[in-house]
């Protein structure tokens, strides 16, 4: 997985969420973005996922501009995206949340969609909950459905925006374990997270994003164990204080 960002900028009015960000990633399997809240992790992920059109600068992921000529539609269809707040479709059952995109976006016949959905739903231990509405599921279950939906079409890259920030510790462990399994299975993943232990265990590359720029980028072991930059050292000493 290659990511190349050059002077990538995203402005919301006077605020620059991404401020001429530069990043060169080559051959990553799992890439983790860490850093303070409001530093630009989510915006970068949304740009990488083709959900956000940068104000200026260049971005290429595996050689593709995510918000390319069709406004990013074909890119979004190739990849999977998971949100912090689950964002399941509340009017559809867990099952339909997974099958509807398979049918309407990926053009699978209902039977094929069903078998693909069954596969990912069973994999995440959701068979007993498949016919419930999101409101009837716990946060952990909802996020597992979100994960099932994001991987059902076998995405090239799975993009996870703080996938466990809205979950309690037990559910967090549950969801992280599944993400770990996906990574072990060879799934290419970019995620933002505040779970440093998880980032260390799963990611091979880590970038610390702060104030809309990449403060430090390197191997997971390098960034977490011997950070070069002062801002990384301060950030890590804060988040690891009670770890």
């Amino acid at each position: 997985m290659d990511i190349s960002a050059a002077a990538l900028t995203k402005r919301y009015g006077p605020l620059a969420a991404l401020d001429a960000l530069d990043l060169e990633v080559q051959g990553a399997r799992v890439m983790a973005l860490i850093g303070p809240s409001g530093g630009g992790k989510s915006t970068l992920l949304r740009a990488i996922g083709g959900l956000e059109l940068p104000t200026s600068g260049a971005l290429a992921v595996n050689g593709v501009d995510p918000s390319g000529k069709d406004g990013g539609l074909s890119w979004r269809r190739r990849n999977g995206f998971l949100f912090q707040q689950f964002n399941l479709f509340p009017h559809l059952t867990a099952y339909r949340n997974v099958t509807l995109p398979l049918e309407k976006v990926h053009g699978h016949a209902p039977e094929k969609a069903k078998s693909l959905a069954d596969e990912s739903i069973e994999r995440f231990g959701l068979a007993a909950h498949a016919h419930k509405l999101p409101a009837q599921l716990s946060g952990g279950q909802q996020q597992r459905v979100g994960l099932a939906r994001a991987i059902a079409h076998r995405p090239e890259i799975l993009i996870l925006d703080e996938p466990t920030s809205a979950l309690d510790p037990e559910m967090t462990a549950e969801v992280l374990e599944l993400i770990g399994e996906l990574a072990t299975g060879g799934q290419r993943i970019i995620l933002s997270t505040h779970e440093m232990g998880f980032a260390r265990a799963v990611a091979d590359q880590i970038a610390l994003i702060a104030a809309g720029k990449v403060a430090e980028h390197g191997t997971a072991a390098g960034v977490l164990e011997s950070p070069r930059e002062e801002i990384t050292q301060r950030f890590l000493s804060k988040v690891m204080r009670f770890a």
Partner: protein
Amino acid sequence: MSARPGAQRLLLEAAVGLLLVTFVCALFWWVFANLDTAWEWSRAWDYRAHLLDGWGRTLWISLLALPGSCLVAGLLVAGSRTKLRTVSWFTRGFVELVRGMPLLTLVLIGYYVVFAQKSVSEFFHLDGPEGKIAAGIALLSIFTAAYLSEILRGGLDSIPQGQIDSARAVGFDRVQVFRYVIFPQALRRVLPALAGQFVTLVKDSSLLSVIGIMEFTYGARTYNSATYGGIEGFIMLGIGYLLITLPIAGFAHWMERRFRYTM
């Protein structure tokens, strides 16, 4: 949420229920005991064809104005959401104009100033009583659509951005985002308000009598004058409207339960 009601609660419900029924019965008795005019239900029976004719016309007007108003409302919502500023301003202006006028005024202006003019009625082939009804249905549709479009716009705007993000993320195109994610949720949210507006449409159709459409209210009033005060016609009038409006309300409540997705 509440557990099985206890015996005490049941007793209270029964007592209050009895009190309410007694009160309503007493009220009715008092009203009817003071009537100066006598009931003559046989006259109503004699005029049944006349009354039924008016009721049928009201039913038809409602059944046609209902989809008509939805159609116009759809156009107004699309117009107000388009990226072309001039079109959205124009639509908003139109909606405010229509909502700012009483239906009676709109019907009077719409009919006597526009549709009743010879060149217009000939252009739309609206001469004759059917033409008058068609004009009435069109005016009623436009009036109701102004309200429906505002209800729908509010519903569409209430869908959180996260839903739109999520729909785009799974790969839906713009039309699919609207069709599979925004619209179904918005519709469910505004269903009670829509149902209320549809019921209002049925009742509002009574104002079409001012341009001489012989709908139900018109029928009851002609019955009243033809029989020199046959007040039973007004009771029939109330029942007749309820026969149309209650099923609409019932259907809406069923839809609400059927498509509920919040616990």
